[in-house]
């Protein structure tokens, strides 16, 4: 009995090894472990054995059955894996063929700059305001300390709609509107991006439509040193942490003192190059302390409140930051231009 079982095991395992596909393996399983198989037969003949032999042979028969089953399972796993590998081989594709294009749009470069500047000032606690583009001459000029006959009106030849309405020449009227909205008794920290218009013939450096960002801070005890501090912070975040700024006296009717603000040239690091006309500095914005007349006209008591304002041309910033050489690019919307700039 024992010899027979051992021979069966050897024979079955041999057959298992020989099986080269799942079907022939299944045949081996049926042949040896099936209801009509030799092991079953052995177990069925157990009754003829002596009580002493019965458990010994029984145990042996079970071991043989298990060994064959294990061999079958192992072989099955091997064969399945081989089959899968063969299947996967067949599924192989040419990974060097191009992928399916996903159409990607993008923001306009001016929007990118505006949002970047907005985010910088939001971080400093400023809010974002808007105002009308068709503005009254009161808000565009008078509330900003430019009376009817003021010579500074020379500087901005404007698109008038009626005698008293015009396309705003600057985003500054939003300053006056915001001060009015705040009733002369609350602190203000705001910036205002927007489109402005001037009577200029479009060329590489002039555009009858362009974009400004205006900023205003009004509070008790605002100092010119605060203006310097905020603009240094801003310039470094926008142009790089190693930038320096300098102020040059200038004139705007709605600020006094008024300054123009230069940042160290990023092309030459302040050493002097063609971009900065060998000065090492590039003008980026105009600023100043809010004129007492402007505060007063908008309901703020200049004895109690002071403030600063600043304004920059977005196209200019974009041209400086990205080296764009013609302002008209921003408005012709050539897809080959627009697609060069994606948000970092």
């Amino acid at each position, binding site marked *: 009995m024992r010899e027979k079982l051992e021979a069966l095991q050897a024979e079955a395992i041999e057959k298992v090894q020989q099986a080269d596909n799942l079907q022939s393996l299944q045949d081996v399983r049926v042949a040896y472990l099936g209801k009509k198989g030799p092991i079953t037969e052995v177990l069925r003949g157990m009754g003829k054995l002596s009580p002493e032999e019965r458990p010994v042979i029984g145990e042996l028969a079970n071991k043989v059955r298990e060994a064959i089953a294990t061999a079958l399972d192992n072989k099955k796993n091997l064969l399945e894996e081989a089959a899968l590998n063969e299947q996967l081989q067949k599924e192989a594709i040419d990974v060097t063929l191009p992928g399916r294009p996903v*159409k990607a*749009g993008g*923001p306009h470069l001016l929007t990118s700059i505006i949002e970047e500047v907005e985010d910088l000032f939001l971080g400093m606690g*400023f809010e974002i305001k808007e105002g*009308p583009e*068709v503005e009254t001459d009161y808000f565009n000029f008078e509330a900003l300390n430019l009376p009817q006959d003021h010579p500074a009106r020379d500087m901005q030849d404007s698109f008038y709609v009626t005698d008293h309405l015009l396309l705003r020449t600057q985003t500054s009227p939003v300053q006056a509107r915001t001060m009015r909205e705040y009733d002369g008794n609350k602190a203000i920290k705001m910036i205002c991006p927007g489109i402005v218009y001037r009577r200029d013939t479009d060329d590489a450096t002039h555009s009858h439509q362009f974009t400004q960002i205006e900023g205003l801070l009004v509070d008790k005890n605002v100092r010119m040193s605060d203006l310097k*501090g905020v603009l240094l912070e801003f310039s470094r975040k926008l142009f790089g942490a190693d930038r320096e700024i300098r102020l040059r006296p200038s004139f705007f009717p709605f600020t006094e003192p008024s300054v123009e603000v230069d940042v160290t040239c990023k092309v030459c690091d302040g050493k002097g190059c063609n971009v900065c006309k060998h000065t090492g500095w590039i003008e980026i914005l105009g600023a100043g302390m809010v004129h007492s007349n402007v505060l007063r006209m908008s309901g703020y008591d200049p004895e109690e409140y002071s403030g600063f304002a600043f304004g920059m041309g977005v196209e200019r910033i974009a041209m400086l930051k990205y080296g764009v050489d013609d302002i008209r690019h921003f408005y012709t919307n050539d897809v*080959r231009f627009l697609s060069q700039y994606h948000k970092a």
Partner: protein
Amino acid sequence: MYVSLNWLKQYVDIDNITPEELAERITRSGIEVESIERVAPESTNVVVGYVESCEQHPNADKLNLCQINVGTETYQIICGAPNITQGQKIAAALPGARLPGGVKIKKAKLRGVESHGMVCSLQELGIDEKFVPKEFAEGIFVFPEDTEIGTPVAELLNLDDVILELGLTPNRADAMSMLGVAYEVAAILNKEVKQPEETYQTSDNKATDLVSVKVEDAELNPYYGAFVIEDVTIAPSPLWMRNYLMAAGIRPINNVVDITNYVLLVYGQPLHAFDYDKVATKEIVVRSAKEGEKIQTLDDQERTLKGDEIVITNGNEPIALAGVMGGANSEVSDDTKNVLLEAAFFDARAIRRSSKHHNLRSEASARYEKGIDPNRVQRAGAYAARLLAAYAGGKVAQGVVAFDELNREEKQVKIDTASVNNRLGTTISDEEIASILTKLQFGFEQDNSQFTVSVPTRRGDISLFEDMLEEIARIYGYDNIPYTLPEGEAFAGKLTTKQHLKRQLKQYLQGAGLMETITYSLTSKVRTEMLVSPDVLEQEVFPVKLKMPMSEEHSHLRLSIIPELVDTLSYNVARNQENLGYFEFGRVFLSKEEQITEQPTETARLAGALTGTWMEQPWQQEKKSVDFYVAKGIVEGIFAQLDLEPVFQQAQVDGYHPGRTATVSLHGKVVGVVGQLHPTVQKAFDLKETYVFDLDIAYLMDQYEEVPSFRTIPRHPSVTRDIALVVDEAAHAGDIQRTIQEAGGALVQQVQIFDVYQGEHMEAGKKSIAYTVLYQDPTRTLTDEEVEASYNNIIENVKAKHDAELRS
């Protein structure tokens, strides 16, 4: 303003500073130096020569063969200038000389004859043709007879000068004079200002016997002073004066005119010289012009006056447009013998009006309209009288005939050290403030840290505390102000819901493959009449028109972004960029009035335009062109961003394809349009199939609910039923979908179209549409009976309303 440094040196010491350094200091303290120009740095070896003989070149009609004596030697030089004659003193560039523009002078043979140098015109020496005196414009320059032979020309013609060009802001009218610039430079360098000598000898005649002055309106003309200078000889002015005028950009004319211009440049005070004998009445009456009155000005233009100009008259007719330009009828000419010199103060606004009306700008009007110094009027007149005596041989009559109600008082401004420091964030001391005021040459009284400043009348721009603050800050130096951060209460900076939504919508559209554009708001009238969205049209609005457009192309504010976007597509397609998707989030301007009197409504629109291939993968043979459903899908996406549900309805819209256009509505209100451009519009813009959308995004953002209420996430299973219907081919799937939704009752969560078919196995004129209806109740499991009941109701309704049949 052009500032000759050689000239400036006469009023302030700038010997120990280079022009570049000076320019930098001036710029950093308040007046931008826009350029630094050396007149003719390269002119060497050019000297004064005497034309000993001048004969025609043997082989050339138009050339002269000259012998030029330069003191040490005589050179044979061939010269083609028509005005060269024997006996002149001229500028001779000798062999080895260098002229501006890199020209090198060498010995040469001209038509067989040797020439050892060149006789120069002023232009050849580097002087701008505009400023060259007329008599020398077409030929060589001739020096005065008493010029010493052999003198280097650079010295005589001021060619070694350096000219600073100042970019003056409107507040700094004080720097429109050499003395004004001298005060500025003196403040920066801490120097004194040297004043010109203004005294003069008088004749026995009294001015009051020679002329009378009457001013009708003291507001317009608070001071009018008339000097009379007799027996003048009209001649060229001295060379140095001509040099300075040319450096300042003024063409020399004759001694009398040059002197008035020279004094104007020194003091910033306009003067005018009349030919005394042409003022036949010997009477000056200053009054407002009469409407329709005529005057011929010095530029030979006849001007019809409007009535609000100030005119100088002889009692009968105008002889000058006050403060702007003189009249031809009283002009100084070569045979003028006696001069009536005007030194006056006119109201800035009146001059500005007058100059603007007649579109006539002069050196005089530029100064008057910005405000002149009341304390320099008489001084300038006196200085001119002195120069007329010295350089025109005139005899100055005693006294000035004047009308005088001029306020010459200095304004008082109070400042204190603490306020200055509080506003600047500095720690400037009382002593420093006193020192700055001294440098500025402002008078002041000091009581510890309180200052009462007497602002000199030359600085008409200063009247308030902050004006003084600026003076102190700029002289103290902006670099010396520290960097601080505002100390006020902290605010939280945050985008408003709408600002946030705007960014979100832009990002969505970029993700959807569209490129953002920014186009012009100003457009043509024609464009305001095309492709306007139905929701704008139904508001009966008018476009805003500019009063004085620069071009027809940019004459009106837009009513729609679409024409600009379509134009942008066209621009790109013309450059072989054919597959394009654009969007713009921008404003349109809607007026309720045809003749605008009030500000229009400015409202935000979100518009897009697409053309060409939308998706392409050539090797997989996939290619999808933009079609209506691509555009509509984007519009649906926009609504989804706002958590809103649009309704689309077939519509006829001008400029759009009649069968491929839908209005977009929300809650029964039309809010926009989506569709294909009409083929004729496409053709006009050279475009192939193009789809656009245009939405009233301002309204849609208003409808957005910031915090939507929580919707229970369903825990119970859903049930779906498919319904395939056969309907007339003209039936609209969306209408049927709405019927299904409504008839299905509250349990219907979603109705989706999964198939549309027309063709084989389908009766002609019919199509099949298949819907999947999803049923769900978040609170319980549905029963077969209730789904069945809903389904049956749906079938009944679609049969009744849409003449639909169930597809077998």
